[in-house]
């Protein structure tokens, strides 16, 4: 029995119940821990957070070279990046006003589109979390998988927003900032989705728009389309390109440990794979 138990009197008189519970618990068949199944499920969960609204999602494990393509995942554990050593006030930590970085934008079929990464700082307590949640609501943002405001405590949260033409922005991915995004890994998390800019139905279900995040040590990737053509995505220079018609590039995103890139397949083609081309 625990040494610092607050009220032992009930435990003493209910020791018989504890005994029965112990006996009942022994009835379960323990079996072998299904480690591999847990691992697969954990990896799927990790990838799913980043692919909520995407047509397809994958994580590619490995360094340079050919990459696996599947609904499967890779990547390691680690989820939350508590900003406990950041600047002191919630405002400085961007708890109530997010940082926003446009990582791609162009005109396609006569419609402008752009992708913006929105990063909210980590609230430190219930009050901050509640106000942050209400502020997110003002932006039309709902953090996926959270039920109450306190679920946000200690977590910076990223939303990837897509705007097409005059349509209201849509969240295409969201999830807590993952510190392991900057641990030197050559894993790439990528999601592809259709981009509806053309004639109704013309885009079909093809995943033309590719959104990915990479470790900051990765300096270039290449997106390959289903017809074998590809587009190089180098690291953007400092201050390179804001506004529309951004060329595909890996870009730093304020508040995100990972860098981000976006590339768009020509109409009629779709995403096939992405590979790391160079590291620092």
């Amino acid at each position, binding site marked *: 029995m625990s040494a610092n138990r607050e009220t032992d009197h*009930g435990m003493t008189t209910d020791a018989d119940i*504890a005994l*029965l519970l112990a006996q009942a*618990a022994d009835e*379960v068949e323990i*079996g072998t821990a299904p*480690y591999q199944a847990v691992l697969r499920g954990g990896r799927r969960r990790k990838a799913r957070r980043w692919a909520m609204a995407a047509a397809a999602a994958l994580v590619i494990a490995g360094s340079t070279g050919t990459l696996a393509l599947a609904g499967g995942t890779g990547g390691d*554990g*680690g989820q939350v990046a508590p900003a406990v050593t950041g600047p002191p006030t919630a405002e400085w930590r961007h708890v109530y006003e997010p940082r926003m970085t446009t990582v791609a934008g162009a005109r396609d079929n006569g419609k402008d589109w752009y992708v913006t990464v929105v990063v909210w700082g980590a609230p430190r307590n219930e009050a901050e979390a509640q106000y942050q949640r209400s502020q997110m609501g003002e932006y039309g943002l709902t953090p996926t998988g959270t039920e109450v405001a306190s679920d946000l405590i200690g977590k910076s949260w990223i939303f990837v927003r897509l705007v097409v033409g005059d349509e209201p922005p849509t969240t295409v991915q969201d999830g807590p900032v993952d510190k392991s995004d900057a641990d030197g890994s050559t894993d790439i998390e990528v999601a592809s989705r259709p981009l509806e800019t053309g004639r109704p139905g013309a885009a079909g279900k093809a995943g033309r728009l590719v959104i990915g995040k990479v470790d900051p040590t990765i300096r270039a990737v290449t997106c390959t389309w289903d017809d074998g053509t590809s587009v190089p995505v180098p690291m953007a220079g400092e201050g390179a390109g804001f506004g529309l018609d951004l060329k595909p590039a890996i870009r730093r995103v304020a508040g995100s440990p990972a860098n981000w890139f976006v590339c768009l397949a020509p109409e009629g083609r779709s995403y096939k794979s992405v590979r790391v081309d160079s590291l620092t």
Partner: protein
Amino acid sequence: MGDRKQARDAEFQSFVVGRWPRLMRTAFLLTGEQHAAEDLVQTTLEQVYVAWRRVGSADDPEAYVRRVMINAHARRHRRKLKEFLAPRDDSGLNREVPDSSDPIGRADDRGALITALAGLPPRQRQAVVLRYWEDLSESQAAAAMGCSVGSVKSNAAKGIAKLRVVPGLGDMVAHGGRK
């Protein structure tokens, strides 16, 4: 990254293998059913995997795992009330009254406790399991359930009171689990 990742994976594997039996027993008491227990533990560990970098280095990873499991159990209860409350009895046949002198009969006695436990509202069940099986303090149970110490006290007391009036359970209690 390779070495760090491998080390973390090895650490997580060791955690899973080492904690699996205990977690299975707790999950069995919470769900009242073998497969639901396996499912609950697996779901819990999958979520722990996602946060393992943080959990593995925490002072008390057990507390985090308990919290995840209780949350997962609560979510399932909200989703599929009957499925997870009641132990399966899909034979459609009446249960026979066991001879209490044989091992199978005694197993059924313990089944009666599981049945009684499964009949409790989920918060009462969680409080009873955490306090009397996991042997947690009220504060620790409150942390796992995400509620106040007072709520734990109240739920545990109500749960125990209900278990004590279950027909047959009193006899089991008096004879240390055997009629």
